[in-house]
């Protein structure tokens, strides 16, 4: 005992103190403590009241006191301090305070001692609890069999609920396990861990068994005795055979019980099962197998989500926006499969914390490096090689992962005998660095850097190159188990460069550059058992160089043409509340308010009011100085959704979302091209506005083995840009005159059946969807199709996808995929005429015909090395055949008049079965 030495000394003075007791007992106490130690409180109390405390410091060191009282008696303060704890106190008449665990010290005999008729009020409190729990603790030592005491232990557990919270981590790598389900079975209460691996579960006090499940991890449980609010960190073991577990996870609970709609999470293991043309695991191609996600062409990875265009997806790589997610024109996606952990797609309910794009959010997270040991991994494919190394910096605290990927296509090109190919070059590389550090239980930092570069040149002539640079720094801070936050800063830059020196007098260098800096703070607060609040602020600064053309040779006669830079700030605040009304009904309502300022310096052309924005109606210009506000756009975005649980295996959900987008991709080509340019909303180009109403029914069949979901949606898009025929978009100083503003609508129904467990797993989906556009100014001569609705380039009504994987053993599995979709629309030639003796064709209304239907079968086989835990290197082989049937699926059709004859052609890119072999290793 801390004060035990003083004890005897004080006994001597007892007599004197007793006299003072009468007067000092009246002394009142004022304290203001926050998470203070008990000792601190004692100091305050002793100083203010003259009482003296006796207690066992080691028993009380876990007690934290948060208290704010004014002018209260010591007794009432102490009652508050020890409320809901096992500690008792007694004060004797000599101003000595005795704090004990469990039983209070009796300082005087009870008044009722001799009155046997009065029921003993204290008897309940002094009930005896058998010490079985402690004995069991000693007998059993493994985490699962151990009984954990959560909260301050007490003699008797009062009825009611308390909150247990903590982190779930991977026992081997120390990485947080995200999306793990933590639940108790009776009553059925469950939550899943958030992005930090944190869970917070409010359950009835008493003895409970927490069950923990997560994909790719071995199921585990913890037995606890819940006395009060407390903390429990849980480590999970990875399931040794990764193939055993299922891969797509919107999580069992989430599908039925979550309020989110149209949200799919894919982990790297699923991605590895989807065969690709070049044998390398491709994140975006896997996303393309999901219902509601389409691409214009099979060689493209520009995503069209639910009838939205490719620029309407917010692609975040560890919170940094990715402008061009592809390598080599879309043959590869920009993400190295070695560092990806998982990807989450939101296509319907977009959480309020995301904004700035209309159609979807694609959140890609890289994994943390191994916190315990150094590990290397890599792969060798037909065209690319990759390598990653990871390991701890400070063991258990911080780790890094460094990964690189490159092509050897240049080497292959040089080997080709065809002269035009051997003079061509095509290559790319990307580098990833991810460092994370856990400062303490409440703070962690993660830093990400990404760099990619593509370079190609045809026949020794024009050279193209483009690069992405991304960086982000994230600080996660937990204020208390109910309140945590994430602070993020991120930087993204995308630039491209086209140059030619073939003819010195015309040698040129064309550049485009966009960058954005983001800062944001996101908070989550578990306000109440029924309410979870998300709120935050964020701001983005854009800097865009829309194009510069400069001579690149001393003899060049080129006049430099440099477009003025553009800059803008986009800021937003949001608040979202998830309200669990009762066990069946859950509501989520969010509002996001965004503000966009287009800033100077800039010269803006002006046009005669009332006339179309055309060069011929230009009447001058207006100059703005640096930082001067040119145009402001602002408005609210609503994110509302509701879920009703019909029974344990069926739920119905409805959601309504509105979104705003202030940045546009200017393109007049069929697919996303690296030479497309981005444009900020300005005085003439209004922000795109979108709204989506969606409803769905979700049902789990056969004891949750099968998940069936049916979702329908209707979507409206305003101010979407389409292009006047034949106008150039790059280096166009009056880009506003080259575009037409359109209104779009999209609707569809998506049916998906997933099987998550067993030897055979995968999914089958069918989508019916339409996507139509119409010029805003329907009477304009530039309005396509006389101002009527016309199908967008990516309008493919029917889509059927089967993704399946069958495990013969832990080491051998087969994947079989089938895809069918309607052909993309094209504009057919309807007539021909003769001009200067040459027949020319003219085209009908835009996008009125369709190219032939698309279907493809892929097949792959995965062989893992043996699964001995201790061996030098783990390896696996993947053999795949892309397009087994060799169907010549047309990517596009076109018509040319050659030597006086109009001919139709169909271009198919992967028109033959493509076999590939990839070797992956890890050591």
């Amino acid at each position, binding site marked *: 005992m801390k004060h035990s030495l003083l004890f005897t000394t004080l006994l001597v003075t007892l007599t004197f103190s007793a006299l003072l007791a009468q007067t000092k007992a009246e002394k009142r106490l004022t304290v203001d403590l926050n998470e203070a130690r008990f000792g601190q409180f004692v100091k305050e109390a002793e100083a203010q009241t003259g009482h003296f405390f006796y207690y066992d410091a080691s028993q009380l060191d876990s007690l934290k006191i948060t208290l704010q009282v004014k002018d209260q008696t010591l007794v009432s303060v102490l009652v508050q301090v020890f409320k809901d704890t096992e500690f008792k106190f007694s004060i004797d008449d000599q101003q000595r305070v005795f704090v004990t665990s469990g039983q209070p010290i009796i300082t005087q005999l009870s008044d009722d001692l001799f009155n046997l008729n009065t029921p003993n009020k204290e008897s309940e409190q002094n009930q005896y609890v058998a010490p079985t729990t402690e004995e069991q603790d000693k007998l059993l030592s493994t985490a699962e069999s151990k009984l954990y005491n959560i909260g301050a232990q007490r003699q008797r557990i009062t009825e009611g609920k308390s909150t247990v919270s903590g982190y779930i981590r991977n026992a081997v790598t120390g990485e947080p396990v995200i999306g793990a389900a933590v639940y108790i079975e009776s009553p059925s209460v469950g939550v899943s861990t958030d992005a930090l691996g944190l869970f917070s579960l409010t359950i009835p006090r008493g003895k409970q068994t927490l069950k923990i499940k997560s994909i790719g991890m071995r199921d585990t449980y913890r037995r606890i005795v819940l006395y009060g609010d407390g903390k429990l960190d849980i480590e999970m073991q990875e399931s040794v055979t990764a193939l055993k577990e299922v891969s797509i996870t919107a999580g069992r609970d989430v599908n039925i019980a979550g309020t989110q709609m149209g949200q799919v999470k894919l982990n790297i293991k699923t991605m590895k099962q989807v065969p690709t043309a070049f044998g390398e695991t491709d994140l975006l191609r896997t996303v393309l197998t999901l219902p509601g996600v389409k691409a214009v062409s099979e060689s493209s990875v520009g995503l069209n989500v639910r009838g939205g265009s490719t620029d309407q997806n917010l692609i975040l790589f560890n919170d940094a926006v990715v402008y061009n997610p592809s390598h080599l024109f879309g043959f590869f996606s920009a993400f190295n499969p070695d560092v990806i952990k998982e990807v989450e797609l939101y296509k319907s309910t977009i959480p309020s914390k995301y904004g700035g794009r209309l159609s979807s959010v694609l959140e890609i997270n890289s994994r943390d490096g191994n916190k315990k040991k150094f590990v290397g991994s890599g792969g060798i494919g037909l065209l690319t090689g990759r390598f990653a190394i990871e390991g701890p910096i400070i063991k258990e605290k911080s780790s890094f992962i460094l990964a690189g990927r490159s092509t050897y296509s240049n080497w292959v090109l040089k080997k080709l005998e065809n002269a035009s190919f051997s003079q061509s070059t095509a290559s790319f590389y990307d580098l990833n660095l991810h460092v994370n550090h856990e400062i303490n239980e409440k703070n962690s930092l993660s830093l990400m850097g990404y760099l990619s570069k593509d370079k190609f040149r045809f026949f020794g002539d024009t050279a193209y190159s483009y690069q992405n640079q991304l960086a982000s720094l994230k600080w996660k801070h937990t204020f208390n188990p109910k309140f945590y936050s994430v602070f993020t800063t991120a930087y993204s830059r995308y630039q491209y460069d086209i140059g030619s020196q073939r003819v010195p007098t015309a040698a040129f260098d064309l550049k485009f550059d966009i960058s954005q800096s983001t800062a944001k703070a996101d908070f989550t607060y578990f306000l109440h058992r029924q309410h979870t609040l998300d709120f935050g602020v964020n701001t983005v600064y854009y800097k865009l160089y829309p194009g510069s053309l400069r001579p690149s040779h001393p003899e060049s006669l080129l006049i430099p043409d440099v477009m003025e830079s553009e800059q803008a700030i986009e800021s937003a605040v949001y608040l979202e509340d998830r309200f669990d009304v009762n066990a069946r009904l859950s509501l989520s309502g969010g509002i996001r308010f965004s503000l966009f300022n287009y800033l100077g310096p800039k010269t803006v052309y002006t046009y005669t009011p009332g006339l179309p924005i055309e060069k011929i109606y230009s009447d001058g210009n207006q100059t703005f100085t640096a930082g001067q506000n040119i145009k402001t756009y602002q408005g609210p975005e609503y994110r509302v959704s509701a879920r009703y649980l019909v029974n344990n295996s069926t739920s119905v959900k409805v959601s309504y979302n509105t979104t705003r987008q202030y940045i546009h991709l200017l393109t007049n080509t069929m697919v996303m091209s690296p030479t497309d340019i981005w444009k900020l909303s300005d005085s003439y180009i209004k922000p795109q506005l979108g709204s989506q109403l969606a409803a769905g029914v979700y049902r789990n069949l056969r004891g949750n083995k099968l998940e069936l979901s049916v979702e329908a949606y209707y979507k409206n898009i305003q101010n979407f840009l389409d292009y006047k025929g034949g106008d150039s978009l790059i280096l166009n100083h009056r880009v506003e005159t080259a575009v037409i503003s359109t209104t779009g609508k999209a609707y569809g129904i998506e049916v998906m059946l997933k099987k998550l467990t067993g030897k055979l797993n995968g999914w089958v989906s069918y989508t019916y969807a339409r996507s139509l556009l119409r010029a805003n100014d329907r009477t304009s001569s530039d309005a396509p199709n006389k101002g009527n609705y016309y199908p967008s380039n990516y309008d493919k009504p029917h889509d059927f996808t089967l993704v399946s994987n069958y495990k013969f053993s832990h080491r051998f599995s087969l994947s079989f995929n089938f895809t069918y979709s309607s052909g993309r629309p094209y504009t057919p030639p309807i007539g021909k005429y003769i001009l*200067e003796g040459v027949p020319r064709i003219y085209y009908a209304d835009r996008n009125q015909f369709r190219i032939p239907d698309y279907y493809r079968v892929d097949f792959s086989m995965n062989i893992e090395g043996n699964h001995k835990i201790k061996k030098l290197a783990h390896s696996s082989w993947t053999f795949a055949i892309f397009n087994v049937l060799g169907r010549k699926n047309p990517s596009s059709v076109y018509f040319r008049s050659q030597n006086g004859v109009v001919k139709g052609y169909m271009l198919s890119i992967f028109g033959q079965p493509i076999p590939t072999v990839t070797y992956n290793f890890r050591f």
Partner: protein
Amino acid sequence: MKTLLSLIAVVVSLVVLDGCVLPFTPPEVTAADRFLVIDGFLNTGGKDSSRITLTYTQLVSNKNSFTPELRAQVIVEGDKGSTFLFTEIGKGLYRLAPRTFNLNENFRIRVKTTGKKEFLSDYTTPKQTPPIDSITYKIAADRSSLQININTHDPLNKTRFYRWKFEETWEYNMPLYSLYEIKNNAIIDRVQNINTCWRTETPSTILLGSTIKLTQDVIRDAPITYIPASSGKLLVKYSIIVKQFGLTQEGYEYWNALAKTTETTGGLFDSQPSQITGNIKCTTNSQELVFGFFSAGVPQEKRIFLSPALGTPQSCQPLDTLSIADAIKAQSFLLTEYWADGARIPEYITGDPGCGDCRTKGGNTTRPSFWP
């Protein structure tokens, strides 16, 4: 962009497969309307006549010749009051004899059809064209091809927009010489030399150039055509005549859009086709389409001859030696006589017409008037 499309071919070829292009026949479009096409320009040079052709559009699949518009009224009007009436020659062709024009005047065309429709173009400024400085050529280092380029400049820096058309003619010989032919079941000396032919082609490619982004109005080495040696055009003698047109900015944009729509659409990175009509509108019905771009100016032209002797001559062997009766019976293609030892009448050596008759290669035996 053609080059971008090529990249796809390059990348795909890496994995030893081809991004293949297949013929494609679109579904039949049946009910297309017929629209008027006004083709031609006002030649303001004073030396040559101006010609305007009026035809109608037709279905892509229609193989008949284009229907002309007959008995229409074709008038060119100046904004300073002058009017010129074209006279009908026939087959939809209307002509205006050479005359001098006020070059400070802007002109437009007005067409009234027998169907009581009236079409009117925008006013266009007559555009002077500077002469072609030179037509040059460059033989590839491995002698596998030849590139023809053009050079021009406008010292006044006023032309800025150019369009070129060209016509190529080449002389070629056949490897086997035919001295005899069968006529009325008799073998006679060949009347016409069919060993040497001339062939003329007018490719439809729209060639455009602009110096608007250069400090000087100078076109240097603008590519006109690329001729592979394997085409056989360069073995004996080759000639090209290039016609140069100065364009207005609107004219340049029109031809550029037309080229994009009819020559380079459909590739993954090409812009989408759009309806290109021109600078003429129907005044009686604004919804009615009309095709064509009316312009005024004086074209320039230049011809060069070359004999680079590129390519490998076709190699051929005679087929047989036949008696007169057999040769007549088989209507063989005869090369020369063959006198066997002691024979009284000759036999004839025969060959493949593809080796001896130049007309089978698309040319004709008439020497062009401009051929030296």
